């Protein structure tokens, strides 16, 4: 099947013609298959957020193109607008965009802009609220009376309600406690399963990304530095560390073990670590 999203030789410069001009993206190319879960990692200022804003046509590339289902998203105005609905983008700290009187109305903002009939809007709002665990009673509350984590989930529901084929989230778990983080990751996963949606998630929390992403993109200094399965990417730990990026705790521990001369294979999730340790122990007891 053809990839749902293709990015070809994307370049972007900010503030052209002022002393603040700088390159934000340099020759970035990759493609995304339907249903993939992609984690995007990179240092602050590496161009992750800029890249994400290109994918739904919020920013126009300085050069290069972005194809959605094989069609350039800037080819005509109507299509650009349509892309905003087909590629849902959840910004960093999305709870700061809430503005309506009730949670219900806020979630309905996106679907309303799509021009859907009232019943369809209602269905989508309730379904989206369900994905993120917002109760019917909460739908009638003011979004400003909710807790931080709940606000964040309402904001995500506001994008999910547009039922985008690709859902992009820019650090959806930043600033939340571990329980809130888990909750949001579960919400995203359940949306993905229900709609066979494609997910791209920018994150600094390596352990989260390692656990749920099928594929990782690593941004470094405005370029795409790595693109591969989590195992392949984390096996290049030293390069990641040189870019100022973190690696999952467990990977770090296993690297230390290797340094000590213990013959372990690199791992990046807890389950793999358990399996690996078990393998070694059994190997030894048999020897």
């Amino acid at each position: 099947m053809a990839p749902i999203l293709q990015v070809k030789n994307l370049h972007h410069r900010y503030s052209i013609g002022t002393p603040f001009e700088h390159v934000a993206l340099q020759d970035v190319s990759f493609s995304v298959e339907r249903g993939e879960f992609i984690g995007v990692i990179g240092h602050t200022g590496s161009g992750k957020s800029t890249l994400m804003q290109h994918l739904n046509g919020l920013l126009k590339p300085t050069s290069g193109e972005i194809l959605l289902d094989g069609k350039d998203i800037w080819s005509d105005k109507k299509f650009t607008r349509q892309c905003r609905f087909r590629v849902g983008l959840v910004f960093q700290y999305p709870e700061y965009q809430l503005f309506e009187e009730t949670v219900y109305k806020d979630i309905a903002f996106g679907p309303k802009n799509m021009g859907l009939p009232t019943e369809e809007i209602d269905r989508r709002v309730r379904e989206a609220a369900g994905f993120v665990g917002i109760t019917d009673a909460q739908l009638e509350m003011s979004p400003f009376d909710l807790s931080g984590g709940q606000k964040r989930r309402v904001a995500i529901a506001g994008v999910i309600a547009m039922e985008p084929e690709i859902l992009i989230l820019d650090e959806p778990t930043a600033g939340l406690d571990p329980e809130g983080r888990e909750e949001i990751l579960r919400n995203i996963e359940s949306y993905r399963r229900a709609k066979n949606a494609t997910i791209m998630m920018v994150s600094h929390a390596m352990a989260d990304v390692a656990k749920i992403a099928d594929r990782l993109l690593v941004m470094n200094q405005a370029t795409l530095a790595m693109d591969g399965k989590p195992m392949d990417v984390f096996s290049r730990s030293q390069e990641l560390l040189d870019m100022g990026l973190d690696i999952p705790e467990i990977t770090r521990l296993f690297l230390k073990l290797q340094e000590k001369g213990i013959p372990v294979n690199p791992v990046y999730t807890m389950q793999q670590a358990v399996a690996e340790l078990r393998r070694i122990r059994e190997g030894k007891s048999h020897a």
Partner: protein
Amino acid sequence: MLKDITLGQFFPGNSAIHRMDPRTKLIALIVYIVALFSAGSWLSYGLVFAFLAGTIAISKIPVKAIVRGLKPLVIILVFTGLLNLLFTPGEKVLVAFWRITITLEGVVRAVLMMARILMLISGTFLLTYTTSPIGLTDGLESLLGPLKKIHVPVHELSMMMCIALRFIPTLIEETDKIISAQKARGADFENGKLLERVKALIPILVPLFISAFRRADELATAMECRCYQGGDGRTKMKLLRYKRNDLYAFVLLVLLLVAVIFAARLGL
């Protein structure tokens, strides 16, 4: 994008103008404006223009940046030009049809008035382009210092100004972000009737106000945590000191003012 507006933005640099004491620059701006408004003849305008051009050259601010800042003034300029062109009485009539008469005096006056506005704004831009907001408020506080004697809260005022200036870029950035976020949810700010467009602003204004209040609250708490209590007994990390450059600037300014007034008096 909103970010691209340059109104009153600081252009970091290291030219002689950048390094000059902010007080000198503030006084220079006042003297410059007085000179500009005293000017009445071609020569006197020429002198003021030469001064402006020289200062821009020394400051190394790209002319493009200044021109871009002047763009929003186009309407005022055209308006001023037209009014002066059409309603200046005079003897040498150039064009006369129906009720419109254009006189030579009108043309001259329109050109000079437009030049005056352009030079006024460019001069002001030069101050804000070459002086950091903090330098500017420090300079202002120091210049207004004598007013403390009559119980004007100079320090508080300059602190407020400093904070306001400091938060302009932050709020612009915030607005940009909110606009993008609402656009991502399909908000449409460019199309529709006037009422629809005004309504489209609500999803931007509500979050913006909320975040502005939140920021103000956080800043106030942070200041209290550091026991901030106003001007008395506060020392400064960067003391303002006049240097040789400032002396030259003052001499040049006096010369400019005298020359312009003479030229205008003599009607050259």
